[in-house]
């Protein structure tokens, strides 16, 4: 049953779906981007979705945004709106699922869960969309029934478009509930469900923001244009890394990498450290697209201006001089004809400092992802699917298969990075022959010829 997770047979999926029902959902923080986006998604499958916010007017704003997002009048027909003061208790009391999408602040969420705990039904599910706060800590000290029914349901923005979704159980979450939500998400909401462990930033952001932050670190020396060219579409992504940070927002980027940097100590620890220039520029209001200034901004004449991270000044992109990057054009030309393995051979063989830097980032991505297996997901498949369908990046295993495992091991080694044991073994033994074995995902889609 699609999307592609095959954890359950069709029969099991049907039985799980029949095991309980979600007819009424309450979304807390329904005026925020993740709040109204998730609420919109829920209206596809749930007959009653209540948008709650600080004021009714704000909840209505959220509903308006949800209707605009999915362009369906049925959102309104399934939605109710209300505020925390007047409508909270009644709505939560009848909810099968309370979905928390407040700001990423532990205490704000905790205070709201105090109220939820008092108002909720004993069998009501509570889910949080947090992108990295600990699920276990968020429900610490609460009743057995709360902890049993509490889990993380991490949609990516915008939830109606990005199908990759992380499902995070706490240590006391009812395993049957986790299975039900996995199938509900997959079948009713059409999402690709990935089970992630309750670790800082979970699986997707842990691996993804490592690469993004490394790009931000490199930008200080190389400048944003060169970095986005080097870690560009040809390396297996639709959107370049620094443009992604601008889209996500610098403050969100900081929250995620700070969380990982403070709460983990892995082999790539230094790559999680936010560059100082970003901290300084954020004080001046540089937060990415939402403030109109990030690594890039576009003026009224559609001229793109680029940040100089050292001075904090901008200059037109046309004035940025780049070194010879012909190899990228050759790689892209081969992608354009779907000759992906040949393209990656050109990438591997490219000479010069720039190509070395690009290979180091890609090798780092693969090495880091494979080293996280057993920590953030059970198998590499979970990381592969969230990177592929959450970030729209070539999953690590797809890169290994396309580059070839022996060449991948060499690339990681030459970059001075630790070689994951199972890749080393595959290079020695020739088994497994492929790492990405998912018939439902076309691997070619990840290699953008740009």
């Amino acid at each position, binding site marked *: *049953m*699609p*999307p*592609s997770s095959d954890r359950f047979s*069709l029969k099991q999926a049907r039985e799980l779906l029949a095991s309980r029902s979600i007819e009424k959902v309450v979304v807390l923080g329904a005026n925020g981007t993740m709040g109204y986006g998730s609420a*919109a*998604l829920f*209206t*596809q*499958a749930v007959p009653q979705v209540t948008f709650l916010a600080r004021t009714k007017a704000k909840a209505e704003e959220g509903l308006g945004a949800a209707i605009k997002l*999915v*362009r*369906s*009048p*049925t959102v309104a*027909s*399934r939605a109710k709106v209300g505020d925390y003061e007047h409508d909270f208790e009644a709505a939560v009391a009848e909810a099968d699922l309370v979905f928390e999408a407040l700001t990423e602040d532990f205490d704000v969420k905790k205070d709201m869960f105090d109220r939820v705990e008092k108002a909720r039904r004993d069998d009501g599910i509570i889910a949080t969309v947090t992108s990295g706060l600990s699920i276990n800590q968020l429900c610490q000290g609460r009743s057995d029934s709360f902890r049993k029914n509490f889990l993380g349901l991490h949609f990516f923005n915008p939830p*109606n478009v990005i*199908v990759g979704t992380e499902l995070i159980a706490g240590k006391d979450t009812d395993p049957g509930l986790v299975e039900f939500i996995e199938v509900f998400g997959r*079948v009713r909401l*059409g*999402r690709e469900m990935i089970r992630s462990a309750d670790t800082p930033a979970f699986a997707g952001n842990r691996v993804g923001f490592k690469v993004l932050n490394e790009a931000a670190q490199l930008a200080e020396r190389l400048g944003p244009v060169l970095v986005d060219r080097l870690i560009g*579409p040809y390396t297996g992504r*639709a959107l370049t890394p620094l443009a992604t940070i601008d889209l996500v927002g610098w403050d969100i980027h900081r929250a995620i990498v700070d969380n990982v940097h403070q709460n983990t100590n892995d082999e790539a620890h230094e790559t999680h450290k936010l560059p100082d220039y970003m901290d300084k520029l954020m004080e001046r209001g540089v937060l990415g697209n939402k403030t109109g200034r990030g690594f890039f901004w576009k003026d009224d004449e559609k001229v793109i201006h680029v940040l100089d991270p050292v001075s904090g000044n901008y200059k037109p992109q046309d004035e940025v001089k780049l070194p010879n990057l012909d190899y990228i054009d050759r790689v*892209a030309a081969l*992608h*354009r*004809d*779907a*000759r992906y393995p040949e393209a990656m051979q050109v990438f591997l063989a490219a000479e010069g400092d720039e190509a070395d830097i690009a290979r180091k980032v890609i090798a780092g991505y693969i090495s880091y992802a494979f080293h996280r297996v057993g920590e953030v997901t059970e198998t590499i498949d979970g990381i592969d699917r969230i990177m592929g369908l959450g970030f729209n990046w070539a999953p690590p295993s797809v890169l290994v298969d396309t580059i070839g495992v022996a060449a991948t091991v060499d690339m990681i080694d030459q970059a001075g990075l630790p070689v994951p044991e199972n890749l080393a073994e595959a290079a020695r033994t020739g088994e497994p022959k492929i790492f990405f074995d998912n018939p*439902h*995902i*076309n691997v*070619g*889609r990840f*290699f*953008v*010829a*740009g």
Partner: protein
Amino acid sequence: MAAGSDVYVLGGYMTDFARNWTKENKHFSALMRESVLGALEKCDIAPEEIESAHVGNFAAELYCMQGHLGAFFTEAHPAFSGLPTARHEAACASGSIAILVASAEIEAGRYDLQAVVGIEQMKTVSAAEGGAFLGTAAWYEQEAEGIEFPFPKLFGKLGDEYDKRYGLKDEYLAEISKINYANAKLNPNAQTRTWYMNKEHALCRTDDNPSVGGRIRISDCSQVTDGAVTVFLASREYAEKYAKGMGKKLADIPRIKGWGHNTARLKFDDKVAESHHAEYVLPHVRSTLTSAWKRAGVSGPEDIDVIETHDCFTTSEYMAIDHFGITKPGESWKAVEEGWLEIDGKHPINPSGGLIGAGHPVGATGVRQLLDCYKQVVGEAGAFQVEGAKNAQTLNIGGTGTTSCSFVVGR
């Protein structure tokens, strides 16, 4: 009438119809290459085994500024250098025409193993420009020139003709759209599988779901899609060898049991004028289906377990229902009302999601239908499997029911 065919279907591969190859900055050659190489891998066939190859495509010259499509096989794999190739066009029925020609070559004893690709890359242009290109499937100068989105309007007229002859409530069209979208959610290659869609949205007949041509609203339309599908067709001799190699029996390999193919006048009004006193609104479509049954040695819809039909618009599926003989002429609404069209219904139609839900890369559609019928009769359709399907049938039409093709596939 020629006898039933002895052409075997060894399987194939379709690209993910949700992909936008222009956004990936890919050339037509990439779409073809992924489809062909994907099929060779899926079916475990060495490229050297292929003896001849055909491409079904409608308008690559317009969408991609590219002709001479058969030659792209040689770009897909070096082993195809020297392969006999050809390209075939009959608007939305192009894929089926390629299958027919490949089948005929097998039956003539020329070749034992054929690759057939149906392909269209459509997202290279704006919706309006693409709509005009599609207008060339009608009589362009007389039916499409200067008209924005001519085809929804022409298929709106098909609905109007039903309304005039028998009465037609739009709610039945909406229900057809709903079933196709719901089925698409079960199909991992369907274009709309992750789209926001529910019953109310499909049934909405207000300005939120605007008209694009008379009674045809957005949710009544098939999609603009990039996609390619490759299938392998084989002679009995090759199929026997293939089955043995796969540890199977010949009886496990589906066969094209029967086919139908004919052409009506180009203009919609001429077709309808001709059928004024006939039992069916589009008699040529009907005779395509009945001739496929005759060649296959089956008596009618009661012997067909699953149908993949051409729902370029909900009105074309509405037309197909009575033309397939599922109801009496003009009573297609009954099949909708009784729930016969659902995957577990009496006459499942488009478990794949059809052109509305799975997508409609024009030249690929006939081949996609054949591949989905193959999957059904070998039990490989996954979540959209019709339990115990033995015989499956396609209906692929070009223009306003101008070229009609149908295949009965079974074991």
